Protein backbone atom coordinates (compact mmCIF):
# COMPACT_ATOMS: atom_id res chain seq x y z
CA UNK A 1 0.00 0.00 0.00
CA UNK A 2 2.03 2.94 -1.26
CA UNK A 3 0.74 6.35 -0.29
CA UNK A 4 1.75 9.48 -2.10
CA UNK A 5 4.02 11.81 -0.09
CA UNK A 6 1.44 14.58 -0.52
CA UNK A 7 -1.13 12.52 1.36
CA UNK A 8 1.38 11.72 4.10
CA UNK A 9 2.44 15.32 4.49
CA UNK A 10 -1.10 16.68 4.52
CA UNK A 11 -2.24 14.18 7.16
CA UNK A 12 0.69 15.04 9.41
CA UNK A 13 0.38 18.74 8.62
CA UNK A 14 -3.28 18.82 9.58
CA UNK A 15 -2.68 16.75 12.72
CA UNK A 16 0.20 18.82 14.00
CA UNK A 17 -1.59 22.06 13.15
CA UNK A 18 -4.48 20.85 15.30
CA UNK A 19 -2.08 19.96 18.13
CA UNK A 20 -0.03 23.14 18.03
CA UNK A 21 -2.16 26.08 16.80
CA UNK A 22 -3.97 26.50 20.15
CA UNK A 23 -0.66 26.47 22.03
CA UNK A 24 1.03 28.89 19.60
CA UNK A 25 -1.96 31.23 19.66
CA UNK A 26 -1.87 31.23 23.46
CA UNK A 27 1.87 31.99 23.42
CA UNK A 28 1.38 34.83 20.95
CA UNK A 29 -1.38 36.41 23.03
CA UNK A 30 0.82 36.38 26.13
CA UNK A 31 2.65 39.30 24.46
CA UNK A 32 -0.60 41.18 23.93
CA UNK A 33 -0.72 44.75 25.17
CA UNK A 34 -4.51 44.71 25.49
CA UNK A 35 -6.41 43.84 28.66
CA UNK A 36 -8.85 41.88 26.52
CA UNK A 37 -7.14 38.53 26.34
CA UNK A 38 -8.46 37.54 22.91
CA UNK A 39 -8.14 40.81 20.94
CA UNK A 40 -4.69 41.87 19.71
CA UNK A 41 -3.60 45.32 20.92
CA UNK A 42 0.12 45.58 20.23
CA UNK A 43 3.26 43.92 21.58
CA UNK A 44 4.10 44.05 25.28
CA UNK A 45 5.93 42.01 27.91
CA UNK A 46 4.02 43.54 30.80
CA UNK A 47 2.18 40.31 31.72
CA UNK A 48 5.51 38.60 32.36
CA UNK A 49 6.52 41.44 34.69
CA UNK A 50 3.15 41.20 36.42
CA UNK A 51 3.63 37.47 36.80
CA UNK A 52 7.06 37.87 38.38
CA UNK A 53 5.66 40.42 40.86
CA UNK A 54 2.71 38.19 41.77
CA UNK A 55 3.72 36.66 45.13
CA UNK A 56 0.74 34.31 45.17
CA UNK A 57 1.85 32.65 41.94
CA UNK A 58 5.52 32.41 42.93
CA UNK A 59 4.55 30.93 46.33
CA UNK A 60 2.16 28.45 44.70
CA UNK A 61 4.86 27.39 42.23
CA UNK A 62 7.32 26.71 45.07
CA UNK A 63 4.72 24.62 46.94
CA UNK A 64 3.84 22.70 43.76
CA UNK A 65 7.49 21.93 43.06
CA UNK A 66 8.06 20.73 46.65
CA UNK A 67 5.03 18.43 46.50
CA UNK A 68 6.03 17.17 43.04
CA UNK A 69 9.63 16.34 44.03
CA UNK A 70 8.66 14.56 47.27
CA UNK A 71 5.72 12.67 45.79
CA UNK A 72 7.58 11.68 42.60
CA UNK A 73 10.47 10.29 44.67
CA UNK A 74 8.26 8.17 46.93
CA UNK A 75 6.11 7.14 43.97
CA UNK A 76 9.22 6.00 42.10
CA UNK A 77 10.41 3.84 45.00
CA UNK A 78 7.00 2.25 45.57
CA UNK A 79 6.22 2.00 41.85
CA UNK A 80 9.54 0.31 41.12
CA UNK A 81 8.78 -2.23 43.86
CA UNK A 82 5.38 -2.95 42.31
CA UNK A 83 6.83 -3.16 38.81
CA UNK A 84 9.52 -5.59 39.95
CA UNK A 85 7.03 -7.72 41.91
CA UNK A 86 4.59 -7.92 39.00
CA UNK A 87 7.32 -8.72 36.49
CA UNK A 88 9.22 -11.29 38.55
CA UNK A 89 7.07 -12.82 41.29
CA UNK A 90 4.53 -14.81 39.37
CA UNK A 91 2.76 -16.49 42.21
CA UNK A 92 2.15 -15.29 45.73
CA UNK A 93 -0.88 -15.10 47.96
CA UNK A 94 -3.06 -12.15 47.04
CA UNK A 95 -1.44 -11.48 43.66
CA UNK A 96 -4.82 -10.87 42.01
CA UNK A 97 -5.73 -8.16 44.52
CA UNK A 98 -2.19 -6.77 44.31
CA UNK A 99 -2.23 -6.40 40.52
CA UNK A 100 -5.81 -5.16 40.66
CA UNK A 101 -4.90 -2.40 43.09
CA UNK A 102 -1.85 -1.58 40.98
CA UNK A 103 -4.08 -1.06 37.94
CA UNK A 104 -7.35 0.35 39.25
CA UNK A 105 -6.03 3.86 40.05
CA UNK A 106 -5.11 4.19 36.36
CA UNK A 107 -8.74 3.97 35.32
CA UNK A 108 -10.45 5.49 38.36
CA UNK A 109 -12.04 8.84 37.49
CA UNK A 110 -10.15 11.60 39.27
CA UNK A 111 -13.29 12.99 40.95
CA UNK A 112 -13.88 9.66 42.66
CA UNK A 113 -10.23 9.29 43.71
CA UNK A 114 -10.34 12.84 45.07
CA UNK A 115 -13.54 12.43 47.04
CA UNK A 116 -12.63 9.01 48.42
CA UNK A 117 -9.16 10.14 49.54
CA UNK A 118 -10.72 13.19 51.18
CA UNK A 119 -13.18 10.88 52.99
CA UNK A 120 -10.25 8.86 54.33
CA UNK A 121 -8.59 12.01 55.69
CA UNK A 122 -11.84 13.31 57.20
CA UNK A 123 -12.62 10.03 58.96
CA UNK A 124 -9.04 9.57 60.13
CA UNK A 125 -9.04 13.13 61.51
CA UNK A 126 -12.23 12.31 63.39
CA UNK A 127 -11.16 8.96 64.82
CA UNK A 128 -7.35 9.11 64.95
CA UNK A 129 -6.83 12.85 65.31
CA UNK A 130 -4.72 13.10 62.14
CA UNK A 131 -4.56 15.10 59.89
CA UNK A 132 -5.54 18.14 61.95
CA UNK A 133 -5.31 20.35 58.89
CA UNK A 134 -5.13 19.27 55.27
CA UNK A 135 -2.25 20.63 53.21
CA UNK A 136 1.22 19.58 52.09
CA UNK A 137 1.15 16.14 53.75
CA UNK A 138 -2.31 15.08 52.61
CA UNK A 139 -1.80 16.30 49.03
CA UNK A 140 1.58 14.54 48.85
CA UNK A 141 0.10 11.25 50.14
CA UNK A 142 -2.67 11.43 47.54
CA UNK A 143 -0.23 12.24 44.74
CA UNK A 144 2.12 9.38 45.68
CA UNK A 145 -0.78 6.94 45.62
CA UNK A 146 -2.11 7.74 42.18
CA UNK A 147 1.23 8.39 40.46
CA UNK A 148 3.02 5.26 41.75
CA UNK A 149 0.88 3.03 39.56
CA UNK A 150 2.08 4.89 36.45
CA UNK A 151 5.68 4.29 37.51
CA UNK A 152 4.82 0.63 38.16
CA UNK A 153 3.43 0.17 34.63
CA UNK A 154 6.57 1.59 32.99
CA UNK A 155 9.02 -0.33 35.21
CA UNK A 156 7.08 -3.59 34.88
CA UNK A 157 7.15 -3.36 31.07
CA UNK A 158 10.89 -2.78 31.10
CA UNK A 159 11.78 -5.55 33.55
CA UNK A 160 9.55 -8.08 31.75
CA UNK A 161 11.32 -7.28 28.47
CA UNK A 162 14.83 -7.48 29.93
CA UNK A 163 16.86 -10.50 28.95
CA UNK A 164 17.16 -12.74 32.00
CA UNK A 165 19.91 -14.78 30.37
CA UNK A 166 22.34 -11.98 31.18
CA UNK A 167 21.45 -12.23 34.88
CA UNK A 168 21.79 -16.00 34.79
CA UNK A 169 25.12 -15.74 33.01
CA UNK A 170 26.41 -13.36 35.68
CA UNK A 171 25.24 -15.76 38.41
CA UNK A 172 26.94 -18.69 36.66
CA UNK A 173 30.13 -16.68 36.41
CA UNK A 174 30.08 -16.24 40.18
CA UNK A 175 28.40 -12.87 40.79
CA UNK A 176 26.59 -12.59 44.07
CA UNK A 177 22.84 -11.86 43.80
CA UNK A 178 23.21 -8.31 45.13
CA UNK A 179 25.93 -7.69 42.54
CA UNK A 180 23.60 -8.92 39.80
CA UNK A 181 20.91 -6.60 41.13
CA UNK A 182 23.20 -3.56 41.25
CA UNK A 183 25.22 -4.25 38.09
CA UNK A 184 22.60 -5.67 35.75
CA UNK A 185 18.96 -5.53 36.83
CA UNK A 186 18.79 -1.96 38.15
CA UNK A 187 20.93 -0.38 35.39
CA UNK A 188 18.77 -2.13 32.78
CA UNK A 189 15.64 -0.75 34.39
CA UNK A 190 17.18 2.68 35.00
CA UNK A 191 15.77 4.46 31.92
CA UNK A 192 12.31 3.20 32.89
CA UNK A 193 12.78 4.29 36.50
CA UNK A 194 13.94 7.73 35.35
CA UNK A 195 11.02 8.18 32.97
CA UNK A 196 8.76 6.94 35.78
CA UNK A 197 10.06 9.66 38.07
CA UNK A 198 9.58 12.31 35.38
CA UNK A 199 6.05 11.10 34.69
CA UNK A 200 5.17 11.09 38.41
CA UNK A 201 6.68 14.56 38.76
CA UNK A 202 4.63 15.91 35.85
CA UNK A 203 1.43 14.24 37.01
CA UNK A 204 1.82 15.76 40.45
CA UNK A 205 2.74 19.20 39.12
CA UNK A 206 -0.26 19.14 36.80
CA UNK A 207 -3.01 17.75 39.00
CA UNK A 208 -6.07 19.87 39.74
CA UNK A 209 -8.92 17.59 40.70
CA UNK A 210 -7.35 15.35 43.33
CA UNK A 211 -5.40 18.28 44.81
CA UNK A 212 -8.51 20.43 45.09
CA UNK A 213 -10.20 17.73 47.19
CA UNK A 214 -7.25 16.85 49.41
CA UNK A 215 -5.79 20.28 50.15
CA UNK A 216 -6.82 22.75 52.81
CA UNK A 217 -6.74 26.49 53.39
CA UNK A 218 -3.28 28.01 53.00
CA UNK A 219 -1.92 25.28 50.75
CA UNK A 220 -2.72 26.36 47.20
CA UNK A 221 -0.70 24.73 44.44
CA UNK A 222 -0.05 26.41 41.10
CA UNK A 223 -2.71 24.44 39.17
CA UNK A 224 -5.26 25.46 41.81
CA UNK A 225 -4.33 29.15 41.38
CA UNK A 226 -4.65 28.77 37.59
CA UNK A 227 -7.91 26.83 38.03
CA UNK A 228 -9.54 29.57 40.09
CA UNK A 229 -8.41 32.24 37.58
CA UNK A 230 -9.36 30.25 34.48
CA UNK A 231 -12.86 29.45 35.76
CA UNK A 232 -13.58 33.18 35.46
CA UNK A 233 -12.37 33.34 31.85
CA UNK A 234 -9.29 34.03 29.73
CA UNK A 235 -6.75 36.39 31.30
CA UNK A 236 -3.46 37.60 29.76
CA UNK A 237 -1.27 36.74 32.76
CA UNK A 238 -2.34 33.08 32.54
CA UNK A 239 -1.23 33.20 28.89
CA UNK A 240 2.20 34.36 30.05
CA UNK A 241 2.33 31.63 32.70
CA UNK A 242 1.29 29.02 30.13
CA UNK A 243 3.97 30.21 27.69
CA UNK A 244 6.66 29.88 30.35
CA UNK A 245 5.37 26.39 31.21
CA UNK A 246 5.47 25.27 27.58
CA UNK A 247 8.99 26.64 27.11
CA UNK A 248 10.34 25.06 30.31
CA UNK A 249 8.64 21.72 29.62
CA UNK A 250 9.80 21.77 26.00
CA UNK A 251 13.42 22.22 27.06
CA UNK A 252 12.98 19.62 29.80
CA UNK A 253 11.49 17.01 27.48
CA UNK A 254 14.18 17.63 24.86
CA UNK A 255 16.91 17.23 27.51
CA UNK A 256 15.34 14.13 29.03
CA UNK A 257 14.86 12.62 25.59
CA UNK A 258 18.51 13.25 24.79
CA UNK A 259 19.73 11.71 28.08
CA UNK A 260 17.48 8.65 27.69
CA UNK A 261 18.50 8.18 24.07
CA UNK A 262 22.18 8.32 25.03
CA UNK A 263 21.65 5.85 27.89
CA UNK A 264 19.84 3.52 25.50
CA UNK A 265 22.60 3.80 22.88
CA UNK A 266 25.27 3.11 25.51
CA UNK A 267 23.34 0.09 26.75
CA UNK A 268 23.00 -1.32 23.23
CA UNK A 269 26.70 -0.72 22.56
CA UNK A 270 27.67 -2.42 25.83
CA UNK A 271 25.45 -5.37 24.99
CA UNK A 272 27.02 -5.67 21.55
CA UNK A 273 30.49 -5.48 23.10
CA UNK A 274 29.53 -8.13 25.61
CA UNK A 275 28.26 -10.47 22.91
CA UNK A 276 31.38 -9.95 20.86
CA UNK A 277 33.42 -10.82 23.93
CA UNK A 278 35.14 -7.46 24.04
CA UNK A 279 34.99 -4.79 26.62
Amino acid at each position, binding site marked *: *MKRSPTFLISVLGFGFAFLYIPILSMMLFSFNNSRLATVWGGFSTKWYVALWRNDQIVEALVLSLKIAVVSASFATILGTMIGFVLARF*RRFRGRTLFSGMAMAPLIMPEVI*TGISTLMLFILSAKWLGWPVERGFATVTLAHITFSMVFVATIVQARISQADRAIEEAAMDLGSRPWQVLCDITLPTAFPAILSGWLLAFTISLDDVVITSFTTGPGSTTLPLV*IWSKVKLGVTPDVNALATLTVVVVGIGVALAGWVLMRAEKRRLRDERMAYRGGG
Partner: protein
Amino acid sequence: MADRSHGLTGWFHRRGWADLMIAVPYVWLSVLFLLPFLIVLGMSFATRTPTSPPFGFGGENPVLNVAGYARLVQDDLYIRAFLTSILNAGVATLLCLLIGYPMALALTRVSKSWRTILLMLVILPFWTSFLLRVYAWMGLLAKSSWFNGFLTETWNLLVPIDWALRSIPMMHSNFAVVLVMVYTYLPFMILPLYASLERLDPTLDEAAMDLGSRPSQVFRDITLPQSLPGIIAGGLLVFIPAAGELVIPTLVGDSGSPMIGRVIADEFSSANDWPMAASVAVALLVLMVGPMMVWSRYQARDDGLAEDRP
Protein backbone atom coordinates in the same frame (compact mmCIF):
# COMPACT_ATOMS: atom_id res chain seq x y z
CA MET B 1 7.62 -23.15 42.16
CA ALA B 2 10.58 -23.18 39.89
CA ASP B 3 11.51 -19.56 40.24
CA ARG B 4 12.02 -19.87 43.98
CA SER B 5 15.04 -22.08 43.70
CA HIS B 6 17.51 -20.19 41.54
CA GLY B 7 18.44 -16.80 40.17
CA LEU B 8 17.84 -13.34 41.47
CA THR B 9 14.18 -13.96 42.16
CA GLY B 10 15.03 -17.00 44.25
CA TRP B 11 17.48 -14.97 46.27
CA PHE B 12 14.81 -12.35 46.93
CA HIS B 13 12.50 -15.05 48.24
CA ARG B 14 15.12 -16.74 50.43
CA ARG B 15 16.20 -13.50 52.05
CA GLY B 16 12.57 -12.52 52.79
CA TRP B 17 13.03 -9.40 50.68
CA ALA B 18 10.28 -10.53 48.35
CA ASP B 19 7.81 -10.38 51.24
CA LEU B 20 8.95 -6.86 52.07
CA MET B 21 8.68 -5.71 48.45
CA ILE B 22 5.19 -7.13 48.25
CA ALA B 23 4.05 -5.95 51.67
CA VAL B 24 5.02 -2.27 51.51
CA PRO B 25 3.06 -1.36 48.33
CA TYR B 26 0.30 -3.77 49.38
CA VAL B 27 -0.27 -1.96 52.68
CA TRP B 28 0.10 1.46 51.04
CA LEU B 29 -2.48 0.76 48.34
CA SER B 30 -4.83 -0.96 50.78
CA VAL B 31 -4.86 2.03 53.12
CA LEU B 32 -4.78 4.88 50.60
CA PHE B 33 -6.68 3.40 47.68
CA LEU B 34 -8.85 0.40 48.64
CA LEU B 35 -9.99 1.68 52.05
CA PRO B 36 -11.09 5.11 50.72
CA PHE B 37 -13.04 3.38 47.99
CA LEU B 38 -14.75 1.14 50.56
CA ILE B 39 -15.61 4.24 52.60
CA VAL B 40 -17.31 5.77 49.55
CA LEU B 41 -19.12 2.51 48.90
CA GLY B 42 -20.36 2.51 52.50
CA MET B 43 -21.27 6.18 52.33
CA SER B 44 -23.50 5.54 49.31
CA PHE B 45 -25.80 3.58 51.66
CA ALA B 46 -25.75 6.24 54.40
CA THR B 47 -28.33 8.92 55.12
CA ARG B 48 -27.69 12.63 54.77
CA THR B 49 -27.64 14.30 58.19
CA PRO B 50 -26.99 17.85 59.39
CA THR B 51 -23.92 16.64 61.30
CA SER B 52 -20.24 16.92 60.41
CA PRO B 53 -19.34 14.91 58.34
CA PRO B 54 -22.85 15.23 56.84
CA PHE B 55 -23.92 11.58 56.78
CA GLY B 56 -24.83 8.89 59.26
CA PHE B 57 -25.97 5.31 59.76
CA GLY B 58 -28.51 3.81 62.13
CA GLY B 59 -30.29 5.65 64.94
CA GLU B 60 -33.40 7.14 63.43
CA ASN B 61 -31.98 6.46 59.96
CA PRO B 62 -32.09 3.12 58.22
CA VAL B 63 -28.77 1.28 58.48
CA LEU B 64 -28.81 0.60 54.76
CA ASN B 65 -30.37 3.48 52.88
CA VAL B 66 -30.85 2.85 49.17
CA ALA B 67 -32.64 6.15 48.55
CA GLY B 68 -29.61 7.48 46.65
CA TYR B 69 -29.70 4.59 44.20
CA ALA B 70 -33.47 4.94 43.86
CA ARG B 71 -33.06 8.60 42.93
CA LEU B 72 -30.52 7.61 40.29
CA VAL B 73 -33.22 5.90 38.26
CA GLN B 74 -36.10 8.22 39.21
CA ASP B 75 -34.54 11.63 38.69
CA ASP B 76 -33.78 12.08 35.01
CA LEU B 77 -30.98 14.57 35.83
CA TYR B 78 -28.73 11.59 36.58
CA ILE B 79 -29.81 9.51 33.60
CA ARG B 80 -29.28 12.47 31.28
CA ALA B 81 -25.87 13.14 32.81
CA PHE B 82 -24.84 9.52 32.25
CA LEU B 83 -26.06 9.63 28.66
CA THR B 84 -24.28 12.94 28.01
CA SER B 85 -21.05 11.48 29.40
CA ILE B 86 -21.25 8.33 27.31
CA LEU B 87 -22.18 10.29 24.19
CA ASN B 88 -19.47 12.95 24.59
CA ALA B 89 -16.78 10.40 25.45
CA GLY B 90 -17.91 8.08 22.64
CA VAL B 91 -17.88 10.80 19.97
CA ALA B 92 -14.51 12.07 21.25
CA THR B 93 -13.07 8.54 21.07
CA LEU B 94 -14.38 8.06 17.52
CA LEU B 95 -12.96 11.40 16.36
CA CYS B 96 -9.61 10.64 18.03
CA LEU B 97 -9.54 7.37 16.10
CA LEU B 98 -10.44 9.08 12.80
CA ILE B 99 -7.73 11.73 13.25
CA GLY B 100 -5.19 9.55 15.07
CA TYR B 101 -5.21 6.52 12.76
CA PRO B 102 -4.03 8.31 9.60
CA MET B 103 -1.49 10.22 11.69
CA ALA B 104 -0.12 7.03 13.27
CA LEU B 105 -0.02 5.35 9.86
CA ALA B 106 1.76 8.34 8.36
CA LEU B 107 4.28 8.30 11.23
CA THR B 108 5.27 4.72 10.34
CA ARG B 109 6.03 5.83 6.76
CA VAL B 110 8.39 8.74 7.38
CA SER B 111 12.16 8.38 7.68
CA LYS B 112 13.68 7.21 10.98
CA SER B 113 15.17 10.57 12.00
CA TRP B 114 11.94 12.47 11.25
CA ARG B 115 9.99 9.84 13.13
CA THR B 116 11.86 10.48 16.39
CA ILE B 117 11.22 14.21 16.13
CA LEU B 118 7.57 13.87 15.15
CA LEU B 119 6.87 11.34 17.92
CA MET B 120 8.45 13.76 20.36
CA LEU B 121 6.10 16.45 19.03
CA VAL B 122 3.11 14.14 19.62
CA ILE B 123 4.19 13.55 23.22
CA LEU B 124 5.25 17.12 24.02
CA PRO B 125 1.75 18.58 24.58
CA PHE B 126 1.05 15.66 26.92
CA TRP B 127 3.90 16.79 29.20
CA THR B 128 2.68 20.37 29.33
CA SER B 129 -0.12 21.14 31.71
CA PHE B 130 -3.47 19.54 30.93
CA LEU B 131 -5.25 22.52 32.45
CA LEU B 132 -3.36 24.93 30.20
CA ARG B 133 -4.18 22.90 27.10
CA VAL B 134 -7.88 23.19 27.95
CA TYR B 135 -7.31 26.87 28.61
CA ALA B 136 -5.66 27.34 25.20
CA TRP B 137 -8.96 26.38 23.59
CA MET B 138 -10.90 28.80 25.77
CA GLY B 139 -8.87 31.52 24.04
CA LEU B 140 -9.82 30.17 20.59
CA LEU B 141 -13.48 29.43 21.20
CA ALA B 142 -14.33 32.79 22.81
CA LYS B 143 -16.61 35.02 20.75
CA SER B 144 -14.03 37.80 20.29
CA SER B 145 -11.12 35.52 19.31
CA TRP B 146 -9.41 35.52 15.89
CA PHE B 147 -10.30 31.84 15.45
CA ASN B 148 -13.99 32.41 16.04
CA GLY B 149 -13.82 35.47 13.77
CA PHE B 150 -12.17 33.41 11.05
CA LEU B 151 -14.79 30.66 11.30
CA THR B 152 -17.62 33.20 11.38
CA GLU B 153 -16.37 34.92 8.23
CA THR B 154 -15.96 31.61 6.44
CA TRP B 155 -19.50 30.67 7.49
CA ASN B 156 -20.94 34.00 6.34
CA LEU B 157 -19.19 33.64 3.00
CA LEU B 158 -20.69 30.21 2.39
CA VAL B 159 -24.28 30.59 3.57
CA PRO B 160 -27.12 32.87 2.38
CA ILE B 161 -27.15 36.32 3.96
CA ASP B 162 -30.12 35.52 6.22
CA TRP B 163 -28.03 32.92 8.04
CA ALA B 164 -25.12 35.27 8.68
CA LEU B 165 -23.80 35.27 12.26
CA ARG B 166 -21.88 37.80 14.30
CA SER B 167 -19.98 35.02 16.02
CA ILE B 168 -20.32 31.27 16.37
CA PRO B 169 -21.53 30.25 19.83
CA MET B 170 -19.00 27.51 20.53
CA MET B 171 -18.14 28.04 24.20
CA HIS B 172 -20.20 26.32 26.88
CA SER B 173 -21.55 23.59 24.64
CA ASN B 174 -21.11 19.86 24.25
CA PHE B 175 -19.40 20.63 20.94
CA ALA B 176 -16.67 22.48 22.87
CA VAL B 177 -16.37 19.61 25.36
CA VAL B 178 -15.90 17.03 22.59
CA LEU B 179 -13.47 19.25 20.67
CA VAL B 180 -11.27 19.87 23.71
CA MET B 181 -11.42 16.19 24.70
CA VAL B 182 -10.23 15.20 21.23
CA TYR B 183 -7.45 17.75 21.50
CA THR B 184 -6.23 16.73 24.96
CA TYR B 185 -6.57 12.95 24.51
CA LEU B 186 -5.32 12.61 20.91
CA PRO B 187 -1.76 11.59 21.98
CA PHE B 188 -3.28 8.70 24.01
CA MET B 189 -4.80 7.42 20.76
CA ILE B 190 -1.83 8.02 18.46
CA LEU B 191 0.83 6.33 20.62
CA PRO B 192 -0.75 2.85 21.02
CA LEU B 193 -1.87 2.94 17.37
CA TYR B 194 1.65 3.80 16.29
CA ALA B 195 3.07 1.04 18.49
CA SER B 196 0.85 -1.61 16.88
CA LEU B 197 1.19 -0.29 13.31
CA GLU B 198 4.96 -0.07 13.58
CA ARG B 199 5.19 -3.81 14.24
CA LEU B 200 3.40 -4.74 11.02
CA ASP B 201 5.42 -6.45 8.35
CA PRO B 202 5.41 -4.35 5.14
CA THR B 203 6.16 -7.45 3.03
CA LEU B 204 2.61 -8.68 3.80
CA ASP B 205 1.22 -5.57 2.09
CA GLU B 206 3.46 -6.14 -0.89
CA ALA B 207 2.48 -9.80 -1.10
CA ALA B 208 -1.21 -8.87 -1.10
CA MET B 209 -0.62 -6.22 -3.75
CA ASP B 210 1.29 -8.71 -5.90
CA LEU B 211 -1.62 -11.11 -5.59
CA GLY B 212 -3.94 -8.42 -6.94
CA SER B 213 -5.41 -6.67 -3.90
CA ARG B 214 -6.32 -3.03 -4.28
CA PRO B 215 -4.86 -0.62 -1.66
CA SER B 216 -8.26 -0.28 0.04
CA GLN B 217 -8.51 -4.08 0.28
CA VAL B 218 -5.01 -4.33 1.71
CA PHE B 219 -5.98 -1.79 4.35
CA ARG B 220 -9.25 -3.57 5.19
CA ASP B 221 -7.88 -7.13 5.15
CA ILE B 222 -4.34 -6.70 6.50
CA THR B 223 -3.57 -3.39 8.17
CA LEU B 224 -6.83 -2.81 10.03
CA PRO B 225 -7.25 -6.29 11.62
CA GLN B 226 -3.62 -6.37 12.71
CA SER B 227 -3.85 -2.97 14.35
CA LEU B 228 -6.94 -3.95 16.36
CA PRO B 229 -5.00 -4.21 19.67
CA GLY B 230 -3.83 -0.64 19.19
CA ILE B 231 -7.37 0.52 18.39
CA ILE B 232 -8.72 -1.15 21.54
CA ALA B 233 -5.94 0.23 23.75
CA GLY B 234 -6.20 3.74 22.31
CA GLY B 235 -9.99 3.70 22.46
CA LEU B 236 -10.00 2.73 26.14
CA LEU B 237 -7.24 5.21 27.00
CA VAL B 238 -9.44 7.95 25.55
CA PHE B 239 -12.92 6.76 26.52
CA ILE B 240 -12.30 5.90 30.18
CA PRO B 241 -10.82 9.22 31.32
CA ALA B 242 -13.14 11.17 29.00
CA ALA B 243 -16.29 9.62 30.50
CA GLY B 244 -15.30 10.68 34.03
CA GLU B 245 -13.85 14.05 33.00
CA LEU B 246 -14.42 17.00 35.35
CA VAL B 247 -12.06 19.80 34.26
CA ILE B 248 -13.13 20.09 30.60
CA PRO B 249 -16.93 20.19 31.18
CA THR B 250 -16.45 22.69 34.00
CA LEU B 251 -14.41 25.08 31.87
CA VAL B 252 -15.96 24.83 28.40
CA GLY B 253 -19.12 22.74 28.97
CA ASP B 254 -22.78 23.58 29.07
CA SER B 255 -23.91 23.71 32.70
CA GLY B 256 -27.46 22.92 31.49
CA SER B 257 -26.43 19.40 30.41
CA PRO B 258 -23.60 18.43 32.78
CA MET B 259 -21.45 15.34 32.50
CA ILE B 260 -21.44 12.80 35.31
CA GLY B 261 -18.10 13.91 36.80
CA ARG B 262 -19.48 17.37 37.33
CA VAL B 263 -22.68 15.99 38.86
CA ILE B 264 -20.60 14.07 41.42
CA ALA B 265 -18.52 17.14 42.28
CA ASP B 266 -21.63 19.35 42.54
CA GLU B 267 -23.50 16.89 44.77
CA PHE B 268 -20.47 16.72 47.01
CA SER B 269 -19.42 20.37 47.16
CA SER B 270 -22.40 22.60 46.30
CA ALA B 271 -25.34 20.44 47.38
CA ASN B 272 -23.37 18.96 50.30
CA ASP B 273 -25.22 15.68 49.74
CA TRP B 274 -22.34 13.25 50.27
CA PRO B 275 -24.34 10.00 50.20
CA MET B 276 -25.86 11.01 46.84
CA ALA B 277 -22.42 11.92 45.46
CA ALA B 278 -21.21 8.49 46.59
CA SER B 279 -24.17 6.71 44.94
CA VAL B 280 -23.51 8.45 41.61
CA ALA B 281 -19.79 7.64 41.93
CA VAL B 282 -20.50 3.95 42.56
CA ALA B 283 -22.92 3.87 39.61
CA LEU B 284 -20.26 5.43 37.36
CA LEU B 285 -17.75 2.78 38.41
CA VAL B 286 -20.29 0.00 37.76
CA LEU B 287 -20.85 1.40 34.26
CA MET B 288 -17.11 1.42 33.72
CA VAL B 289 -16.75 -2.24 34.68
CA GLY B 290 -17.38 -3.22 31.05
CA PRO B 291 -14.52 -1.23 29.51
CA MET B 292 -12.35 -2.14 32.52
CA MET B 293 -12.83 -5.87 31.88
CA VAL B 294 -11.80 -5.41 28.25
CA TRP B 295 -8.79 -3.45 29.46
CA SER B 296 -7.67 -6.01 32.03
CA ARG B 297 -8.07 -8.89 29.58
CA TYR B 298 -5.96 -6.92 27.13
CA GLN B 299 -3.34 -6.21 29.82
CA ALA B 300 -3.31 -9.83 30.93
CA ARG B 301 -2.65 -10.95 27.38
CA ASP B 302 0.20 -8.48 27.12
CA ASP B 303 1.67 -9.79 30.37
CA GLY B 304 1.32 -13.30 29.04
CA LEU B 305 3.28 -12.39 25.94
CA ALA B 306 5.99 -10.83 28.06
CA GLU B 307 6.26 -13.90 30.27
CA ASP B 308 6.47 -16.25 27.32
CA ARG B 309 9.75 -14.71 26.30
CA PRO B 310 12.78 -16.82 27.13
